[in-house]
């Protein structure tokens, strides 16, 4: 038998047509899908400066108008207009307008992310596609433009890290807490240029939505991509979206493949975690920051605004109200998630508690609405807390799970969600 390979080696060997790839080698790889979000207009403007160029594979181009939506300035409106016209002119079928939601979630929900694929996106959190067993990685807009016309892109073969988590987690502790703890432990560059593979019974027991949180947050330790290997959960998720198992070719790492490191996490003793300003690796157990006063709570982003995230928040907010003087902004990740949350009554629960529900999209995570004044503090379910990301350079962002966000919205202070979770309610049914 040939030598055992990691997930990254196998995907890149297939996508480049080369064999014998080792970490550090640079290859030209042919991605299966090229995602561009609000940056699409920059790709189009760049393409216009390359006269005579044609598109290599229009069916591999996906555009989703998510970061600044709907347009609040005429300049943004012009950018959207440019993208719509381009999609029409070039027959880009994978085009979603400002009503769709966050690109990553929209592509996954619509069955366009498949196990074993190589996917590039103009967004660092493209690592999220590993939730469906794909190799997703962020690139710049010039790279997307270059791939539009050539179909290929230079890629370095990454080293791989193996992460094994022992479960189950305590009630009130979630995959977000696992990831914050991991990022705090290895640091913001702990996985730079690495492919992160999540292995073990705990990860394989997670829903696709929960896997998305793992793979999304892996970016915050510098990962090139992250993956939970495809299994029955993956197959079932895709089947529900009309994608049959014979429509894709899953890629699994070989037993005995070479990893730079194996990181073991004991999830059983883990408590809720909070990333403090102004870096994602500035992580504390919740008891060290509990009681800090808040001005705003934001439940949104590609990390934690999926259906089960909203359900966890609603379970705590049901029959309670948001603290006086605190703004609770809820931005569902996609139109599908919003629809499901309306139908199940979650949105009504959140509204009754005093939440402001915004249109699906990136919203306040990208500083698009819900920004802060000098001296204000937000606790957010997003994946980044850099200075000035949500408004004033003199404001602060804390990151935590949706349950911690909901508990904190009720008290107006950073609060351990376990204070609000009776045993009978903690195990919220996961629909996503």
């Amino acid at each position, binding site marked *: 038998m040939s030598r055992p390979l990691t997930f990254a080696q196998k995907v890149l060997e297939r996508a480049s047509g080369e064999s014998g790839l080792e970490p550090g080698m*640079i290859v030209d790889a042919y991605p299966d899908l090229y995602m561009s979000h*609000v*940056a699409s207009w*920059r790709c189009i*403007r*760049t393409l216009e*400066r*390359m006269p005579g160029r044609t598109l290599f594979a229009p069916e591999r181009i996906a555009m989703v108008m998510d970061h*600044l939506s709907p347009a609040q*300035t005429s*300049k*943004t409106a012009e*950018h959207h207009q440019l993208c719509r016209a381009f999609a029409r002119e070039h027959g880009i079928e994978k085009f979603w307008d400002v009503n769709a939601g966050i690109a990553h979630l929209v592509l996954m929900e619509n069955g366009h992310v498949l196990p074993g694929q190589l996917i590039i*996106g*103009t*967004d*660092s959190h*493209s690592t999220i596609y590993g939730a469906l067993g794909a190799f997703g990685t*962020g*690139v*710049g*807009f*010039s*790279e997307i*433009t*270059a791939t539009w*016309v*050539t179909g290929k892109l*230079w890629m370095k073969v990454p080293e791989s890290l193996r992460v094994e988590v022992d479960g189950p987690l305590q009630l009130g502790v979630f995959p977000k807490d696992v990831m914050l703890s991991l990022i705090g432990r290895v640091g*913001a*560059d702990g996985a*730079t*240029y690495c492919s992160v593979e999540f292995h073990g019974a705990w990860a394989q027991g997670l829903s696709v939505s929960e896997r998305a949180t793992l793979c999304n947050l892996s970016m915050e330790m*510098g990962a*090139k991509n992250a993956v939970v290997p495809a299994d029955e959960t993956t197959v079932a998720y895709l089947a529900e979206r009309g994608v049959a198992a014979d429509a894709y070719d899953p890629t699994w790492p070989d037993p005995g493949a070479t990893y730079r490191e194996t990181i073991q996490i004991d999830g059983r003793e883990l408590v809720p975690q909070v990333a403090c300003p102004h*870096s994602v*690796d500035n992580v504390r157990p919740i008891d060290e920051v509990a009681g800090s006063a808040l001005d705003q709570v934001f439940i949104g982003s590609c990390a934690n605004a999926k259906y089960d995230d909203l359900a966890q928040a609603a379970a705590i907010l049901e029959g309670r109200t948001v603290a006086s003087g605190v703004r609770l902004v809820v931005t569902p990740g996609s139109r599908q998630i919003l629809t499901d949350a309306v139908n199940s009554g979650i949105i009504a629960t959140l509204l009754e508690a005093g939440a402001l529900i915004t249109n699906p999209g990136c919203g306040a995570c*990208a*500083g698009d609405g819900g920004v802060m004044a000098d001296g204000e503090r937000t606790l957010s379910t997003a994946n*980044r807390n*850099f*200075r*000035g*990301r949500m408004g004033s*350079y003199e404001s602060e962002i804390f990151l935590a799970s949706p349950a911690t966000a909901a508990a904190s919205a009720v008290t107006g202070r950073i609060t351990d969600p376990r204070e609000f979770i009776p045993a009978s309610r903690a195990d919220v049914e996961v629909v996503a």
Partner: protein
Amino acid sequence: MTADTHAAATRSRRAGGPCITFGDDVNTDVIIPGRYLVSIDPVELAAHAFEPLGEEVQRRLLSAKVVVAGRNFGCGSAREQAATALLGAGIEAVVARSFARVFFRNAINTGLVAVECPDAVAAARDGDAVSVDHGSGEVTVEGRRYEFAPYPPTLSAILDAGGLLPYLAGAEGAQR
């Protein structure tokens, strides 16, 4: 700087001048805040580069030619404008202990020299004369020489062309 003089500067394989120094984990929201990404013009972007760190840092940036930084420079988003904003501010090279991977890609692909050279970073003080020769793999700090591993040929060719898109244009020309 015009696109032509910029391309010429990178083709010479040597960049340099006074440096501005930063610590670890400088993120892309600090390099260019998200609210300015409605532009791709290097000069417009440069006016807001490092705005969260205050006007004094912004002034020093404009008189510098080289950014010297610690670990994980450019961590955070995939915004290519983080590299473009530095080019617009007249920065020709970034020397760091290490780079976040998307920033590194964006630097190479926009023609901004980005090299990892921890010894040079340890030696450099704010305002020191720093030069980078990505052809020979050498950084100098006030005349003292430090080596780094030269780029693989593919990356070197992109940088020599002045970025990914000029590189592609050149490759197409060569095929004709």
